[in-house]
């Protein structure tokens, strides 16, 4: 979280503005700063609670020192990162995020329909000029906002509009010249979406980038096997290269965007498990040259093994989204198996009763896993 090297010049400036600030531990991103603010708020609440319970009572001087230090930190981070230090700030922020998203959707749709309405009335040179200018103009607006504002609401808004403009740019130019549709365009869109996501820190843009990249990788995998790119969904294993690439991307250090690795992991797991779930009941859609029944058995076993492994990995490395996805798909594989075994002959009330019992069992297992995780954390803290 804290880095002195890259933030040193900025810290010197803040040291002048905040002379009472001590220590040189400065968050490297707004997200890290907001987490630090949340920790201070939780600490203060817990301190009051401990004082009320008579467990821990700081004298006036100590309390003053702690409050002064923390207040200086909050002001410093508010100045540097424009974080939410009060509850009403947080509510306003949520509202601004929602408004920014709706504005982006609205403006994106407006650009799309504006182009459709008027573009046919221009000659090709003007059409090309308008489409390229829209892409470049919206990109420059995005970067201008990204440079000027800390919170990034307008930057993210314009970034989404820029992506829409670029998609329209290439799509309409392709229509204009009757170009043969190709899956390579997904790679180009993904590239811009990645650049915009990393410039603005927007997870929505990162998700769009991931989806475009996965579309390209799966279409390319299908093309290498002689499949037309739009039919790639008929061979679900085509999505596995995308899953592997995204999973490895999650290991790239993201100092400035600490929430990005979880987005990569989440989509990697979805592109891994959804094809597996489909193939566990539809063996004919596999590249593997086995009998369909054998393929289905293979993927059912693989589904159980990999979801269990994913749960273990999520617990081990504290990847919460990983663990949740592992639990969801383990449960889905299990329910699918129950359906195969029992639905045909078991009374429906009994079937659903067993499904409910299984859910209770999952609850008990998760509770046990959670307490094991807490014990491991305590041991780690004691050892540290």
């Amino acid at each position: 979280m804290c880095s002195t090297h890259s933030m040193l010049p900025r810290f010197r400036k803040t040291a002048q503005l905040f002379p009472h600030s001590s220590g040189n531990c400065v968050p490297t991103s707004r997200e890290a700063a907001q987490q630090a603010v949340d920790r201070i708020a939780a600490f203060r609440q817990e301190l009051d609670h401990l004082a009320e319970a008579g467990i821990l009572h700081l004298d006036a001087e100590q309390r003053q020192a702690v409050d002064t230090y923390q207040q200086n930190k909050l002001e410093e981070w508010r100045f540097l990162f424009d974080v939410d230090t009060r509850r009403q700030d947080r509510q306003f922020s949520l509202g601004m995020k929602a408004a920014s998203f709706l504005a982006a959707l609205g403006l994106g749709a407006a650009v799309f329909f504006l182009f459709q309405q008027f573009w046919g009335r221009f000659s090709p040179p003007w059409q090309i000029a308008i489409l390229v200018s829209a892409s470049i103009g919206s990109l420059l607006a995005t970067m201008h906002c990204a440079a000027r504002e800390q919170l990034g609401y307008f930057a993210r808004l314009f970034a989404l509009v820029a992506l829409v403009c670029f998609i329209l740019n290439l799509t309409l130019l392709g229509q204009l010249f009757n170009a043969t549709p190709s899956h390579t365009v997904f790679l180009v869109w993904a590239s811009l979406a990645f650049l915009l996501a990393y410039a603005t820190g927007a997870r929505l843009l990162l998700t769009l980038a991931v989806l475009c990249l996965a579309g390209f990788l799966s279409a390319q995998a299908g093309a290498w096997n002689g499949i037309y790119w739009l039919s790639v969904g008929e061979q679900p294993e085509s999505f596995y290269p995308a899953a592997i690439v995204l999973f490895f991307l999650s290991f790239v250090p993201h100092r400035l965007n600490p929430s990005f690795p979880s987005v990569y992991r989440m989509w990697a797991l979805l592109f891994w498990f959804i094809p597996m779930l489909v193939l566990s009941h539809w063996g004919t859609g596999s590249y593997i040259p086995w009998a369909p029944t054998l393929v289905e058995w293979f993927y059912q076993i693989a589904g159980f093994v990999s979801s269990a492994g994913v749960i273990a990995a999520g617990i081990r490395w504290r990847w919460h989204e990983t663990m949740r996805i592992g639990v969801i798909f383990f449960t889905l594989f299990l329910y699918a198996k129950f359906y195969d075994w029992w639905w045909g002959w078991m009374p429906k009330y009994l079937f659903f009763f067993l499904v409910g019992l299984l859910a209770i069992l999952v609850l008990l297992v998760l509770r046990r896993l959670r307490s094991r995780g807490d014990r491991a954390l305590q041991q780690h803290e004691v050892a540290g």
Partner: protein
Amino acid sequence: MSSRMRRILQLTAMALLLIVAANAILLLGSWRNRSGEPDAELLLSERELYVPYSWDDENSGRFIQLRYQLASEMGGDTLFTNPWLDRKKLKSLGYRLPQEGADTAESASYLSFPAKKVFVVLELQGLAYEQALAQAVAEMEGLQPTAGPETIQAAEEKVRQLRDQDSRLYVVDVGLDAQELRQHHSSKERYAIVPGQLRVWWDRGHKQNKPQWFSSITLDRERIFVPLEFAGPLARCAQQMQKVPSGGKTGASGCRVRLAFGTRLEPWVKELHAWTN
């Protein structure tokens, strides 16, 4: 300059480069497609093109759509059977087919293959059209004298439509190599080679338990953009098409479109005009 500003400038430069490069590559590809001698030039009529009578007010783009036919086997009960797409041809396209005897196996009643990228040969007013017309005439003339008036009328209508209304553009071949196809179909005024998709499936068949291979072929680019310079003639075409009553003879007026296919096999409208007798 702060590290944050430097990062934003770097990302801006990369994004600008990407936008410019993507557009340049697309435009260069289109220029290469239209430079030099076209791979094919077909003179199409309103029979081979679908011209909308009106366009959506929300979309100012103007398009025409290719209308083409797939030959069907005599007595076949599906529109998607191509008699020239036999087992040997399918194997040459890279399909891994089950063994000959396995076609009647109890375990496989339906087998489908994902769509494959192929090059499609379109033939304009050639042998395939003449054969289809001859087949329809033969069917009409072969009707028993005791056939009902409705059956006779239907057969006559089928011949009339084939002769006067239906598209004369037929799919006659597919392959993985466009140059090889061009060697076999060399006339550039009669044959166009375009990218498309082939879908193949095998079905036991619901009639007489006879298993058959079925196929469907679609083109990558069926809708063709009409540039602004041809918007006027296109509108006149649409008006004239609207005047032809349903089932009427289309020879009184129509459209002529010279469609060129470039070195990348992408089409563009070279000429477009409406005509009346």
